[in-house]
C-alpha cells in the first residue's frame, strides 16, 4: 500500500517544530528516521498525518557530557549509537543493544529518540532506558521537562509525552567503577523483534533488570533484582517468572516467553560470574 499523508513540513529549528505541531491541531506526527512511522503509513494504519520533519534540528544530534551524565541526542541513529566512542565508554549497554535492532539498512536511519517515543514493547532501547534509570528529555509549547524512564512508558505504543511535545534526548548516568551492563534477547532470526529479552545493569553492587517483549511496556523486575543482590539466582528466576505477564501470540506462548526470560537471566548471571 502507499502512504496517504496530509502534508509535510521541514522544521528549521525547535521553535518552528513546536509551532508546526501546534498548527497541525492533533494531526501532527514527528518524523525523524521514519523506520516505524513510514511502515505504519505504508500499511494504512494512519492517514492524513501532517509530518513534521525534525531531522534538520542539529541540536538533537550527537552526544555530550553533562557532569556525571551523558546526553544522547534524539536524532542519533542506531548505527551511530553502536559506534559512538562516548557511548561505548560511558553507556556500554546502549552500544551492545544497537546491533540487536533490526538490520543494517534500518539501523542506518532509525533513531534512538524515535525508538523511545514509539515505545514498542519488544524494542531494546526503551528497556535499556529503564535498566539504566535514564531520564527522557522533552520539549513542548510550555518549555522543557524531564521524565524518568521508569515513568515514561505507559502502555503499548503509549508514553507520558503530551500532544505537541518532541522527544529531544535521553540523559543517562555515566558508568561508575565496577559497573556491568548486559543485554540478551531471544529472537527467531537475527534482527527480529525479541520474543523475550533482558537488559541488566549492576551499579554500586545493586542489580537493575528490565524485561522487554514480555508485556505492554519494559518492566523493571524489582523482586528479581533483590534476589540477585542477595546472590540467589534461582530465586531471581522464580521472581522474574512471577512478575511477568507476557502475551501469547504467533511468536510464542506466555509460558514460553516466561521460560525464555528465566533462561536469559540464568545465562546473564553465569556471564557475570554470579551463578555459583
Amino acid at each position, binding site marked *: *500500500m*502507499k*502512504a*496517504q*499523508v*496530509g*502534508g*509535510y*513540513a*521541514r522544521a528549521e529549528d525547535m521553535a518552528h517544530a513546536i509551532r*508546526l505541531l501546534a*498548527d*497541525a*491541531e492533533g*494531526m501532527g506526527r514527528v*518524523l525523524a528516521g*521514519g*523506520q516505524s512511522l*513510514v*511502515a505504519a*503509513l*505504508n*500499511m494504512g494504519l494512519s492517514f492524513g498525518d*501532517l*509530518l513534521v*520533519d525534525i*531531522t534538520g534540528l542539529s541540536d538533537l544530534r550527537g552526544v555530550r557530557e553533562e557532569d556525571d551524565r551523558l546526553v544522547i541526542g534524539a536524532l542519533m541513529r542506531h*548505527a551511530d549509537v553502536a559506534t559512538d566512542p562516548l557511548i561505548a565508554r560511558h553507556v556500554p549497554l546502549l552500544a551492545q543493544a544497537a546491533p540487536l535492532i*533490526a*538490520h*543494517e*539498512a*534500518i539501523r*542506518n*536511519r532509525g533513531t534512538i529518540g524515535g525508538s523511545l517515543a514509539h515505545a514498542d514493547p519488544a524494542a531494546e532501547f526503551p528497556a535499556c532506558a529503564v535498566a539504566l534509570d535514564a531520564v527522557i528529555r522533552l520539549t513542548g509549547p510550555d518549555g522543557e521537562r524531564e521524565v524518568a524512564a521508569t515513568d515514561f512508558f505507559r502502555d503499548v505504543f503509549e508514553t507520558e509525552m503530551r500532544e505537541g511535545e518532541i522527544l529531544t534526548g535521553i540523559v543517562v548516568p555515566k558508568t561508575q567503577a565496577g559497573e556491568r551492563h548486559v543485554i540478551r534477547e531471544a529472537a527467531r*532470526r*537475527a*534482527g527480529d523483534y525479541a520474543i523475550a529479552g533482558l537488559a541488566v545493569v549492576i551499579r554500586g553492587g545493586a542489580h537493575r533488570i528490565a524485561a522487554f517483549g514480555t508485556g505492554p511496556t519494559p518492566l523493571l523486575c524489582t523482586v528479581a533484582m533483590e534476589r540477585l543482590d542477595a546472590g540467589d539466582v534461582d530465586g531471581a528466576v522464580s521472581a522474574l517468572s512471577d512478575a511477568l505477564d507476557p502475551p501469547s501470540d504467533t511468536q510464542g506462548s506466555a509460558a514460553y516467553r516466561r521460560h525464555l526470560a528465566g533462561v536469559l537471566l540464568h545465562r546473564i548471571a553465569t556471564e557475570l560470574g554470579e551463578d555459583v
Partner: protein
Amino acid sequence: MTDAFRNRIDLELTVNGEAVELTVPAGRHLIDLLRLDLGLTGSHAGCEHGVCGACTVLVDGAPVRGCLTLAPQLGGADVWTIEGLTDRGLVADLQAAFVARNALQCGYCTPGMLVAAKALIDAGGTPSRAEIREHMSGNYCRCTGYEAIVDAVETVARDRAEGAMS
C-alpha cells in the same frame, strides 16, 4: 491545517551520479521515486514495510530501505541503485559470483541482496559464514534457501582479501 505543510515537495538530489530535480507527493517513498518517477525499476518494492529488503539501495553511502525512506527527506542526498552500481562495475565481482554459484532464481531479491552484500564486502576483512548470515538476515530470498548466496558473498570477500594482500 496551515499552508506550512505541503502536499507536493520540490526535491534536488543525486541519483547514480546524476543530478535530479523533481516534485513528489508528500507521502512518496524512495523506492517509488526511483521506480515510478525516474523509471529505475532495478530496485524492487516487495513488502513495503521494511521486512523483505528487496528495496535496499544506498543513500549517502549506506544501505537503507527504499520503502521506509520518505522521499521529501532526501534533499541533497546521494542515492545509488543497482543500475548505477552495475554501470560503474562496483558490484561486478558479486554479480559474477551470484551467477557462478546460482545464488538467484527468480531474481526479485537480487538487487537488494547485492546492495546489502556490497556494504559487508566493502567493510573489508573476511567475514565468517555466521557473520554473512547475520548481515544478510534482513533480505528475504524465497528461491535459493540462502546457502548459495552465503557462498557467493563468502567467495567475493575471500577473493578481495587475497587481492588486497597480493
